[in-house]
């Protein structure tokens, strides 16, 4: 196409005035720049940015970032402090003699529990994995329908219901939730912790909103090619939704990992890692170091998931491949 334009230029040049030529040349140059930018894009360069702007933004973000990352830093520092430094007042923001004492103490206490510690770990991992997988599957299916099938009866109502339920907060709802679960015989089973977390409206609304930006033409094309709703969703729409899915996974994983069970599960064998960690931490001020150590240990899995999910998103997005 670029060649075509070049061939046409000399003919039209003689007829038209020189301004038009300049304009064309400028445009060509710009197009060349964009080609360069496209090559650079793989290195993450933004088309309409400047180096000075990048540096200014970096400094601004770095300054704000110190403020944000502080509690994380503080928890880690506290967990590495030996007893002698932990109770220094006012607390220091750095550690003089880092030690793994708190962590080894934590696991010493954890090793002496009535129910083996591995059981708590298993419970948490099992619940988290099941919730994450079920949630992503269920929510993606539902979000596809709620965003891309506007002509089915009940479409508007279902959407309204989701948004409305996101705004509802009630301190009294848990009573009825408990009653219902008791009636269904789910108290003291894994299901009591898993099922309520699978169908939360927030994840659904997130996916619904993101899917609605997908071009309808792709979906029509899939339909013409003979794909049903389910196949369109999983083979056409979902592969284009990497950033949203990564965010969804971060949310649901974090939520599921922190489930404590509460009143729904009172059998010791079914309790989760956060429950036992908070029990260990709650037993006195002398365990100050263990409190931070357990917080750090609990933070690691969501953190790893966050980093994996986010860095996968940053790979170049599959373009929709549309030529309208």
């Amino acid at each position: 196409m670029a060649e075509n334009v070049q061939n046409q230029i000399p003919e039209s040049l003689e007829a038209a005035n020189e301004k038009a030529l300049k304009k064309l040349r400028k445009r060509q140059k710009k197009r060349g720049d964009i080609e360069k930018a496209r090559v650079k894009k793989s290195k993450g360069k933004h088309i309409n940015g400047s180096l000075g702007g990048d540096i200014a933004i970096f400094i601004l973000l770095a300054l704000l970032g110190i403020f944000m990352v502080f509690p994380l830093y503080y928890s880690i520092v506290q967990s590495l402090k030996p007893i002698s430094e932990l109770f220094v007042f006012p607390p220091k923001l750095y550690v003089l003699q880092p030690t793994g004492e708190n962590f080894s103490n934590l696991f010493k206490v954890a090793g002496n529990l009535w129910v083996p510690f591995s059981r708590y770990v298993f419970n948490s991992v099992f619940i988290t994995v099941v919730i994450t997988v079920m949630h992503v599957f269920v929510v993606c299916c539902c979000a596809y329908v709620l965003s891309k099938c506007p002509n089915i009866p009940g479409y508007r109502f279902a959407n309204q219901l989701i948004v409305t339920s996101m705004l509802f907060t009630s301190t009294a709802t848990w009573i009825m939730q408990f009653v219902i679960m008791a009636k269904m015989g789910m108290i003291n089973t894994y299901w009591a912790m898993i099922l309520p977390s699978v169908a939360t409206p927030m994840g659904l609304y997130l996916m619904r909103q993101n899917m609605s930006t997908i071009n309808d033409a792709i979906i029509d094309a899939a339909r013409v090619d003979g794909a049903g709703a389910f196949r369109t969703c999983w083979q056409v729409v979902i592969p284009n939704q990497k950033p949203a899915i990564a965010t969804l996974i971060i949310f649901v994983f974090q939520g599921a990992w922190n489930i404590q069970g509460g009143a729904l599960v009172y059998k010791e064998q079914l309790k989760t890692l956060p429950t036992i960690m908070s029990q260990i931490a709650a037993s006195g001020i002398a365990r100050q170091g263990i409190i931070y150590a357990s917080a750090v240990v609990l933070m690691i899995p969501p953190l790893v998931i966050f980093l994996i999910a986010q860095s996968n998103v940053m790979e170049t997005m599959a373009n929709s491949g549309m030529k309208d």
Partner: protein
Amino acid sequence: MAKKETQEQKKPRPINTESKTAYTLHLMKMNQACYWMMLPFFLLFTFFTIIPVVMSLPLGLTSFNLVQFPHYVGLTNFYSLFVNDDVFLIAIKNTLIFAVFTGPFSYVLSFILAWLINEMNPFLKVFFTFVFYAPSMTPSAFVIWQLIFSGDSYGYLNSILLDLGIINSAKQWLTDVTYMMTVVIIVQLWMSMGAGFLALRAGFQGIDTALYEAGAIEGIQNRFQELFTITIPAMGPSLLFAAVLAISGAFTVGSVGASLCGLPSTAYAVHTVMNHAQDYGSIRYEMGYASAICFVLFAVMLICNHVIRSVLSKYTD
């Protein structure tokens, strides 16, 4: 209903001659797969959200102490909320102040931050997204703020201000009525870079890069022009999502104030509607009254959501 469906199967008629219900049924049958895909979510959603919520709405009309069976008291709860309960009026005032300051600010702030991060290279993107989301991943993140605003002269803020000679004696940041509101608003803003921020990041990431190339060809000169002409219109749905989160976040504030200043706080200076509901729900066990409070809050949020949706829909597609 099953009968009608079988009838339809036997003699398919042209759609436009049928009645409205028949047409609806026809549409439902055509899109059967869609309903099957929605089924798992809505089944669980009905059991664990809709039914409990619907069942707890009537609780607002009762007096219920969790031990005895609730008994009907009519609109007494709502009446005493607005007429007899002075603390509730303070709570409403505080909640509105919080909502006005933290809601729009945190919304705009997380949008700006998400945008600035989007301008960085891939490694820095991950890094900064992590940095700004970190408070949401750290349990009890605001413990650090207790150290900073601690009321004695060892509190970081007090000791710095004393050293610089700005103040003469240690200030009670967390119990003095004049400072409490400001302190809690600052911490609240700092905590609010959570789900909304991450969702906006995803929204930025999901924009087709071809749009930016097209924009460059059309002659967009700088980032700001690009932001207003391409990015914001393409971000509509994500902006709406973050708005809903911001609304529910802004109106249900309370946990930060409660853990920094205690529940109830000095002179109810940072007492919010949510704190009030917790007070009656989990301390005094007056569930009926707590439900009534939640219902009022819900009504306010619905109105607010409606207003914001109509404003946002003007600026986006």
